[in-house]
């Protein structure tokens, strides 16, 4: 965890001012520039006291009959029998309170719903003109009117990382959003996270390379060597930038692909790695070691349960499904019990969706995984399961001091559930983002939230 902190906690957009070195240099590090800054403004916060709920704080703690005090958009206090300082009081007895759900693997806004021939022909999920599209920023494709955002919010999801797809090996930068209504993605774009990036190994990139007319490796070994060569090139570029900043060389011309990879090597950009098989994961972890960077999380990671020690030692998390399996060869050995197995082995593990449908039920995914764990004698209590959808994903995003935990000073991204959040019957009664009520189930929106759904028969439930 200490290792993880080295990479965390610095806002990508504000880095020119972040450290002494940065402050003294005229030229900011090119990979730290954000050409697409956030225009998100937290909606007006309401102070409130949630009284008498079962609280899972996201970090492993549980309080029965507990209270949460929210003031100024932040968590002020969590405990039992809190005095009301004169704010709105919500009777939460019978309900459960948790941090808002965080989904670190979404294609909302780019995997278009409804899908038409237009997007089947040319999808925004991945730029597929080359195996290396490290220069792309997925946010420049995200349609803020995707109704997937609204469904996620209704289901208690308060933070979403949108990743590019897994066709390219270097697929580009991710964006972290709050699923609030806004005309553009930049009105949703979170701040305070570490810039994310997507890489992929295994069947997807090699299949693409093997297709006619595509350039790119056609085998696992080809994909791995392609990664190494790209990082070698980036290493050279990064040295040149550093030398120029130290006054011992000329600044190399900007190169959008090289600078993104240099940002990874510098620890300023965090890799989200799409990988299934144990050998694939191990090979890319070796590359990370060779080039001196840390991979934030292996996504899908169907065979991570076979190599928990490698992930633990690398400080790399696993973002997993409960029950996606079998649809391709590298997904044959998936097990539902993976999350509890990794949890017990001391690996930072989280649930992820990859789907607007399953993204509405990440806690249910956790419940399925825990049930499968029980079949082999692993019991994980609710207060630890909730980490898989709150504080652990917050850590991957570099937001572990801001969201994902109910503790004083944290942003008030909070859900009051109608019951146990791991029950299929429970619903998000009240959803707060930055202390603002963004969904109240007793007062549903009078009209569809997304522009797409307005005026279309039957849409919007």
């Amino acid at each position: 965890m200490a290792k993880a902190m080295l990479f965390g906690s610095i806002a990508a957009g504000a880095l020119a001012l972040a450290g002494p070195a940065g402050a003294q240099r005229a030229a900011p590090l090119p990979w730290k520039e954000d050409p697409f800054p956030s225009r998100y403004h937290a909606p007006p916060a309401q102070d409130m006291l949630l009284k008498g709920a079962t609280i899972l704080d996201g970090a492993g703690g549980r309080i029965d009959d507990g209270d949460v005090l929210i003031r100024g958009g932040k968590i002020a206090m969590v405990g039992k029998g809190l005095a009301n300082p004169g704010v709105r009081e919500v009777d939460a007895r019978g309900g459960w309170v948790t941090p808002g759900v965080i989904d670190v693997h979404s294609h909302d806004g780019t995997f278009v719903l409804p899908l038409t021939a237009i997007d089947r022909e040319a999808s925004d999920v991945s730029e597929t003109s080359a195996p290396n599209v490290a220069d792309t920023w997925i946010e420049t494709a995200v349609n803020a009117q995707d109704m997937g955002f609204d469904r996620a919010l209704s289901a208690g999801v308060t933070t979403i990382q949108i990743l590019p797809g897994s066709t390219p090996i270097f697929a580009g930068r991710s964006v972290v959003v709050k699923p609030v209504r806004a005309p553009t993605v930049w009105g949703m774009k979170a701040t305070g996270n570490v810039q994310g990036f997507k890489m992929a190994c295994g069947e997807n990139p090699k299949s693409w390379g093997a297709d006619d007319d595509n350039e790119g490796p056609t085998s696992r070994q080809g994909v791995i060597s392609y990664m190494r060569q790209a990082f070698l090139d980036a290493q050279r570029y990064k040295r040149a930038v550093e030398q120029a900043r130290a006054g011992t060389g000329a600044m190399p011309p900007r190169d959008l692909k090289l600078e993104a990879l240099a940002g990874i090597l510098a620890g300023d950009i965090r890799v989200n790695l799409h990988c299934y098989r144990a050998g694939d994961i191990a090979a890319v972890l070796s590359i990370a070691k060779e080039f001196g960077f840390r991979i934030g999380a292996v996504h899908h990671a169907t065979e991570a349960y076979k190599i928990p020690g490698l992930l633990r030692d690398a400080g790399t998390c696993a973002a997993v499904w409960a029950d996606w399996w079998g649809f391709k060869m590298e997904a044959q050995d998936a097990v539902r019990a993976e999350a509890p197995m990794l949890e017990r082995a001391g690996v930072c593990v989280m649930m992820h969706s990859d789907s607007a449908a399953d993204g509405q039920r990440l806690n249910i995914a956790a419940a399925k995984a825990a049930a499968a764990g029980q079949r082999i004698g692993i019991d994980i209590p609710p207060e630890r399961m909730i980490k898989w959808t709150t504080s652990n994903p917050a850590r991957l995003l570099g937001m572990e001091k801001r969201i994902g935990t109910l503790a004083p000073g944290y942003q008030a991204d909070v859900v009051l559930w109608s019951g146990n959040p791991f029950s299929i019957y429970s619903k998000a009664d009240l959803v707060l983002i930055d202390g603002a009520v963004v969904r109240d189930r007793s007062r549903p929106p009078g009209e569809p939230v997304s522009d797409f759904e307005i005026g279309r028969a039957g849409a919007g439930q």
Partner: protein
Amino acid sequence: MRTMASLIALMVATPAAAQTLAVTHAEAWTMEGAEPVRDATIVIENGRIVSVTAAGGVPPGATVIDAGGKPVTPGLVNGATQIGLVEVSGSPDTRDDASTDERTPGYDPSRALNGNSTLVSLARADGVTRALIYPSPSRHAPTSGEPVFARLRDGVDILDRGGIALYAVIGGGAWERLGARAQQWAALRKLLGEAKRGTPPPAETDRKKDKRRSGGPGGPRGGPDDTIHDVVAGKLPLAIQTHRESDIRQAAALASDLGIKVIIVGGTEAWRAADMLAAAKIAVVLDPQVNLPLNFDQLGARRDNAAILTRAGVSIAIGQAGGAIHANYNAGMGLREGAGIAVANGLPYIEALRAVTVNPLAIWGRGGGTLAPGADADLVVWDGDPLEPSTNARSVIIEGRQVSNWSRQDMLAERYKDVR
């Protein structure tokens, strides 16, 4: 905590031969009323339910399964899945779900059904004992072929009954060779109309001898032509996989014009035609997980589709639950999760249980699915509410025998559980 592994070990030691079983201390959801029988003893002999009695006795010599007060339900029935036809969906050489024959409207999946598939054993471990297995679109638009019923007993042979229906798909962009949906409807009407006008059924000598393909509603069967004749004779249903309200109303018009039985599969916008469907006695096999439109035909997707239809008096079953991934790869979990979601969105609990037991069997013309005396002894002992994804199936009994509920996933997890 007693682990499933120890339960399985017990189970493997039990002889698989026909036997007398007694499930004791069960919360028995017999599906005969809206409430379970508490502390029930369920006696099973020769593959049939003998009795369900509160605090009943155990026959001498019976193998006892103590349910410990937990729910026992009839075996779950998936109303539409493709387990046994699909192994690795991304790899066509492991799929047997569709015909490429351009001249024949039929495809009989019974000749491809594979009980040894890992998808089948996982569905069984999740409490599914029977399922309607449907073919994917063929190259003879707009038909796919003839769904079969599977019974997930141990071993390769899981065929229960072939020739259950004729299956067609109608929708926007559903067919490359038949573009607009009016063309699709015209082609379907032509196929059925020709059969209706009396092309004679194939000669008796062409017909198959397989017992499980005989004795059904249409008598001995010989493939797609027979099926089509049985459909236009009103003996077998025509299943139409479609979603948009206009198509659902077209399906009802077709049923009325030709005097045939129609089942809607998918039916995302069926709630918009609920009263009409109830009046026409058209059942709907649906996925309660759908609340987002994958395409324009599904713009009206909403979570209370099942509740609205049931309230209007439409018979519903759950199938294709969870879409592309879960409909096959989690044919049991997806079914339970779908039923749970339906309950969370207004469907009464007992109706959700019906939608995964008696209803799919009734809709597809099989019957049963209860724990009534004389019923097929397909049942599941759960460790909690079967509609909660956090619940495990503790014992699965099919045709009166305990079957394995230890999947390949469990074996892998068991193998690696102590790796650190």
